[in-house]
């Protein structure tokens, strides 16, 4: 009897699960499908690539896309160059300072992009008025915005490695510090480096507030302008951007699973792209 009620309860639960999943998937995909349908059709003509090809032929499309890609590469490289040496140094020499460094890394949490751009324009217009004129001045601010994510994923990667032992082993074999860094530590950190880079790139590709308010022409700014006069082209491009972001973040979770395979540690089969410790990437 108890077993029977238990199995009925269990069946009921699975029905609930199916209902919730169906509703969730329907709601998740409605705007996506709508964007694709709206963007790739014309009224009375059916499927058409007319609107998007018009958008792609616009003179500002390519320069603005290239600018965003450059900013993504520069911000990502910048973050890695700043954070990898800092974190390695702290883990090796001054673990006592790690909580302080981590505390610093979460400050961007409480400073929304719109507040950062306001403070930045106040400060830099008063001290170095020329600085904010170049679009490349966005790079350090993008590094700040992605800091909580990038810091955490690099720190987690380094913690998983036991670098003290690796360095001691390298030293005992007579390797120099540079050799240890290049041939032992960095190759082992590759999944963490990759994960951090993907998060940083995904953030830069979507960032609108700083670029628009500091008057720089990036891809999201192009997209918004497109939306004002060519809504179908904007919908088509938005669809492509969302799918691209999905693929980017999906490859992140594959990078995560590869790590567990390489180190042979805990064999979790699926790592979610973001976890409860991962904040939203802050580009809304």
């Amino acid at each position, binding site marked *: 009897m108890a077993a029977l009620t238990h199995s009925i309860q269990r069946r009921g639960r699975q029905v609930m699960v199916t209902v919730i999943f169906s509703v969730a998937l329907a709601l998740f995909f409605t*705007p996506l499908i709508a964007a694709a349908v709206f963007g790739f059709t014309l009224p009375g003509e059916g499927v058409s690539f007319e609107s998007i090809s018009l958008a792609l032929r616009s003179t500002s499309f390519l320069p603005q896309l290239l600018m965003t890609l450059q900013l993504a590469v520069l911000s990502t490289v910048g973050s890695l160059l700043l954070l990898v040496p800092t974190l390695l140094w702290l883990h090796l020499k001054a673990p006592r300072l790690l909580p302080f460094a981590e505390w610093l890394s979460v400050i961007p949490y409480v400073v929304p992009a*719109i507040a950062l751009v306001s403070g930045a324009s106040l400060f830099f217009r008063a001290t170095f008025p020329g600085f904010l004129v170049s679009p490349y001045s966005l790079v350090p601010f993008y590094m700040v915005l992605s800091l909580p994510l990038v810091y955490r994923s690099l720190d987690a990667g380094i913690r998983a490695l036991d670098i003290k032992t690796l360095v001691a082993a390298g030293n005992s074999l007579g390797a120099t510090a540079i050799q240890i860094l290049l041939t032992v530590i960095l190759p082992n950190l590759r999944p963490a480096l990759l994960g951090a880079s993907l998060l940083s790139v995904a953030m830069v590709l979507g960032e609108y507030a700083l670029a628009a308010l500091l008057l720089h022409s990036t891809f999201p700014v192009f997209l918004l302008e497109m939306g004002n006069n060519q*809504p179908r082209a904007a919908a088509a491009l*938005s669809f492509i951007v969302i799918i691209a972001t999905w693929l980017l973040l999906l490859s992140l979770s594959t990078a995560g699973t590869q790590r567990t395979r390489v180190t042979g540690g805990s064999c979790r089969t699926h790592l979610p792209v973001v976890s409860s410790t991962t904040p939203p990437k802050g580009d809304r």
Partner: protein
Amino acid sequence: MNRLKPFQGAAAGWLGVVPYGAFLAIFLIVPVISNIWTTFVSQGRFSLDAMSRLLKPQYLDAFLTTINLSLVTAVLGGVGGLALAWALNAAEKPRWLRNFVLSYSAVASQLGGVPLAFAFIAALGVQGVVTRGFLDVTGWDLSQTFPLASFAGLAIVYLYFQVPLMAILMLPALGSLKQHWSEAAASLGASRWHYVRDVVFPVLWPPILGALLLLFANAFSAYATAYALAGGGVNLVPIMIGFFISGNVMMDEGFAAALVTGMIFIIVVTMTLRALLERRANKWLR
């Protein structure tokens, strides 16, 4: 001989943080401090004038609307997200289905900004696919009932990332409820309701409240999504700050800085509460 240890002692440790600290000082901390300075110092003296002007009806209304929107989307997103997290946790059979929903939830929780806004305009805008379809079938114009450039419209779009974010945040906490707790409770004669009230609720309320606070801060600081959907149509603090920076409205510098200070203050309070709750929540997790 240890080549990686050229220096010893505390000084060496601090030396390593210098580039990182200097970078954050220049591009984050000093801009924020100069913003706070501009708020409270006017013509060389301390002044609460700019802050007190935040209480004027028009600006107070912007804060109240933003707080309202953040509260509504945090609570509704919280309820929806809890349901989704429960389903992800209880799902048994097709493993791939659960993984697919989980993976898309993780991505959706990170979406936002201009592309999401345009996807919603393509669905629920005046010419939107869903709007047209609904109009043809039922004669009901959704874009009249829920115009996207309104409070309700923004709330719907924000829920698109709030619900999955709540689900992702709550998943570990739900996973920490051990199966044997419910069995132990049942064997002691507790009903399902007793179990939820006396075991599940005391364990889960700190992480739930903590996640709701993060959702609140998340909605409060959103700019691009709201701007792309509504422009100046909804009186929100981030939009108002944006108009000032881009020179679309006339405000003095001190007052714009006060708006930003007010916004940072609300988010700092929210996130501090969350950090305190998290400490409490960790007692039962893992």
